[in-house]
């Protein structure tokens, strides 16, 4: 069966499972389990390797608790893990073992809480989950997308928070826009007054004011989008360096762009309509400032 093959080949257990924390040995030696045959091989994350100052090919002693017993293992590979955003700020040591080695280390033969299965074809995850859940009793399979959804209420809150921030930012900038229009209003008022004096109809004047407002709004959102991209890139550079990861911290999505552009154009038109209404309800002679 494919699932079993997957397990045997590539299933490496996240060492975050209780107890399987690597401990670099110091001090007097508690009981040691001497291996009969080649040393078990483990993977070390690059961060852990850097903190312990060891490299591929070095050996390491692991224990489930400080009291031991200690197991000698060989570092087969130092790799760069794909971190979940939740793990980014964690500074623990981590090591990945083959399942039998982990069981030997924990001395808990069948007591594995969870295993991660990497599929050759991730597109078939749902199908695989359904098949696993249909054949096996005593455990439940989830796709990683399901798990992320189940565990991501925090992210949901944060992302709502972010959306709220952007809406507030957009509203603030529209107020700013409206203020600019009012400040420029002196100039605009005179222009409206002149247009009406020379006989341009109210409708044409209103259309011109709306056009100007929409243009200003579009220009504003273009500038805002540019700023958003620049800020987003800066945030990513900063936090990727700070946490030494490749995770994308900030992303300007097309949906967000659409929202921003639509909101600012709608607000621009609303501001323009209000301005036009205000300007068209005063005598033109008062507007040219005699």
């Amino acid at each position, binding site marked *: 069966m494919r699932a079993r093959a997957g397990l045997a080949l590539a299933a490496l257990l996240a060492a975050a499972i209780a107890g399987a924390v690597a401990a670099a040995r110091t001090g007097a030696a508690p009981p040691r389990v001497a291996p009969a045959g080649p040393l078990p091989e483990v993977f070390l994350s690059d961060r852990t390797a850097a903190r312990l100052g060891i490299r591929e090919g070095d050996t390491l002693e692991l224990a489930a608790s400080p009291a031991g017993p200690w197991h000698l293992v060989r570092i087969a590979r130092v790799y760069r893990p794909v971190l979940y955003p939740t793990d980014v700020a964690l500074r623990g040591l981590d090591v990945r073992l083959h399942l039998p080695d982990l069981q030997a280390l924990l001395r808990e033969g069948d007591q594995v809480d969870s295993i991660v299965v990497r599929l050759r074809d991730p597109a078939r995850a749902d199908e695989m989950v359904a098949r696993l859940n249909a054949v096996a009793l005593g455990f439940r399979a989830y796709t990683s997308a399901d798990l992320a959804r189940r565990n991501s209420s925090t992210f949901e809150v944060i992302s709502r928070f972010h959306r709220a921030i952007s809406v507030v930012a957009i509203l603030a900038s529209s107020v700013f826009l409206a203020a600019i229009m009012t400040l420029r209003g002196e100039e605009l008022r005179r*222009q409206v007054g002149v*247009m009406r*004096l*020379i*006989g*341009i*109809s109210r409708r044409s004047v209103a259309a011109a004011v709306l056009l100007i407002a929409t243009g200003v709004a579009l220009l504003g959102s273009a500038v805002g989008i540019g700023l958003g991209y620049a800020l987003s890139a800066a945030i990513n550079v900063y936090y990727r360096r700070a946490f030494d990861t490749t995770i994308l911290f900030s992303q300007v999505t097309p949906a967000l762009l659409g929202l921003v552009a639509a909101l600012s154009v709608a607000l621009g038109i609303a501001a323009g309509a209000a301005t036009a209404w205000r300007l068209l309800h005063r005598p*033109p002679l008062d507007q040219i400032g005699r």
Partner: protein
Amino acid sequence: MDDAQAVAQAQHAGGAPAPDRVVASADAVVKVYRMPGGTVHALRGITLAVERGTLLSIVGPSGCGKSTLLHLLGGVDLPTAGTVTLLGQPTASLSDAALARLRLRHVGFVFQRFFLLPMLTAEENVALPMMEAGVAQPDRRRRARALLERVGLAHRSQHRPGQLSGGEMQRVAIARALANRPALLLADEPTGELDAAAGWEIARLLREISRDGCAVVVVTHNTELAAIADRQVRMRDGTIA
């Protein structure tokens, strides 16, 4: 308007207008501004006729009501009492929209401070009233260029007002005022912001425009401009002196 009235007006204004040449007229026009701080009598009974093909200058001390009279003649504002007739129609009888249409097609305005639209080029400024009047694009383009050429600015047609001198801006404003071939051109201190040479250029243009058949009314403190007018009206304290 009957002949007797026209004659009476002519006597007031010091000329002899033929009724069929009258473009705009004021008959016993009074304009009162009521404000919280008190009432201002800007015009106290003005009777005047403006004719095709003449340059009429209005002079008088500041605050005597010159601009007010100009605005009433152009249908921008309405009299408190008396009648202003513009192209045969009493302005008070027309709706706001009808007055706007009348101004668009038959009245040109020139202001002391030019009042061009800064976002538009000279050519676009001139074309704007034609666009509103529904002139087709190639025609209005051709005419805008011809008008700019007439005021000596053919080479500046693609420049925006900010790139032009005061005299040039005023010439663009005159070209704009002429866009829809108005019967009446009203200019309120058109040389007020210009030096003598540029002012003289504007005076010469207005003179020409009136010779071409337009009725031109110019409010001015510029004695040279006032002097080349066909008729000069002196105002004092809301009346014709």
